[in-house]
């Protein structure tokens, strides 16, 4: 299956969640489905998307956080799986799109190509309780719905083809994305307070 196909399937669920995605193809595919202020595109610092997700989930118990990660990124920060297991935020879903490739930096094989390294097994070994390994759109859809309904940290390792978009470009500067993502979260917090007053209409 293709990552873009998976993203399209779950996009309606992502619309009101805090989403942190890795760089390159994954970021572009999400952006192309429709950018929202609650999406943060981590265009570098490979490995840290899940760490950002943990920081968000820990401090925003009323929000659901979805991390869209990749095998290359997770391999760069394998420790994250142990840290997530040690601090299993119940409002966090960690999706790892495993295409066996460092696609966005040249299409090189990663360690998961040809089944050498099994990220789902590493996740379980790290102590994560709810880990699904999926390979079809149906399996992915089901795993994602379960993860959304589960009040516990969930990891979904989805085997996808090494495909990507045929164009790259966002009408969004990197710091702009960071600032607007933070403002979005602030606004949501403010709206949630019992004494919240609606902002004056424009």
């Amino acid at each position, binding site marked *: 299956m293709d990552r873009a196909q998976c993203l399209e399937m779950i996009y309606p669920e992502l619309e009101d969640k805090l989403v942190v995605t890795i760089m390159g193809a994954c970021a572009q595919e999400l952006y192309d489905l429709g950018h929202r202020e609650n999406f943060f595109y981590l265009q570098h610092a490979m490995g840290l998307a*899940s760490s950002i997700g943990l*920081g968000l989930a820990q401090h925003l118990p009323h929000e659901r956080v979805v991390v869209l990660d990749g095998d290359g990124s997770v391999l760069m920060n394998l420790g994250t799986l142990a840290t997530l297991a040690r601090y299993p935020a119940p409002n966090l879903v960690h999706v790892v799109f495993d295409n066996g490739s460092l696609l966005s930096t040249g299409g090189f094989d990663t360690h998961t190509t040809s089944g050498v390294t099994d990220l789902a097994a590493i996740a379980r070994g790290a102590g994560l309780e709810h880990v699904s390994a999926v390979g079809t759109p149906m399996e992915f859809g089901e795993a994602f719905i379960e993860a959304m309904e589960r009040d516990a940290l969930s990891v979904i390792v989805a085997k996808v083809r090494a495909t990507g978009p045929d164009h790259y470009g966002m009408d969004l500067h990197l710091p702009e994305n960071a600032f607007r993502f933070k403002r979005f*979260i602030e606004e949501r917090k403010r709206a949630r307070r019992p004494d919240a007053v609606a902002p004056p209409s424009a």
Partner: protein
Amino acid sequence: MTVSYDNSKSIFEGIKAAGIRSISALPETWLGLLLQRAEDDPDVSLIQVAREEEAVGVAAGAWFAGEPHVLLMQNHGFLAAINGIVSLAQLYHVPLCMLIALRGHWGEPYPWHTRGGTVTEEVLRALSIPFEYARDPATVGRRIQEAWTLSQSSLYPVALLLTRDLMEG
């Protein structure tokens, strides 16, 4: 020399006095007593990472969530975190308030720390990260507040180096 119980307390109180209740850390000898206080304090959220670079991600998450946050690590951990500091924090203007235990510096008896001790300040300068030294428990609270304030106003990483004078005082 052993790690100072009283000075670790002063540092922890300084963190709380600055309004910070969220910490990401990777323990090391000098930070042990300080982190124990953080673990035992129900008002403080502590995430201990497996590698210091993760703390940069956790700190960014706390920043986006609007939660004041401090990172605690040793200087070799800072070296391990450089890519995260540069291509997440600096790239996206995410402030980092880092308390960094300065090993391998004046008075260091252990040979393995010495190379890291030699390069820490140069690397901080190379990354244009403002840094100061915390030497005195009487003023460490103020140094932490100042580090915090500068990180917020500059939207940039700031480092407070926890020295041997303070940690083994």
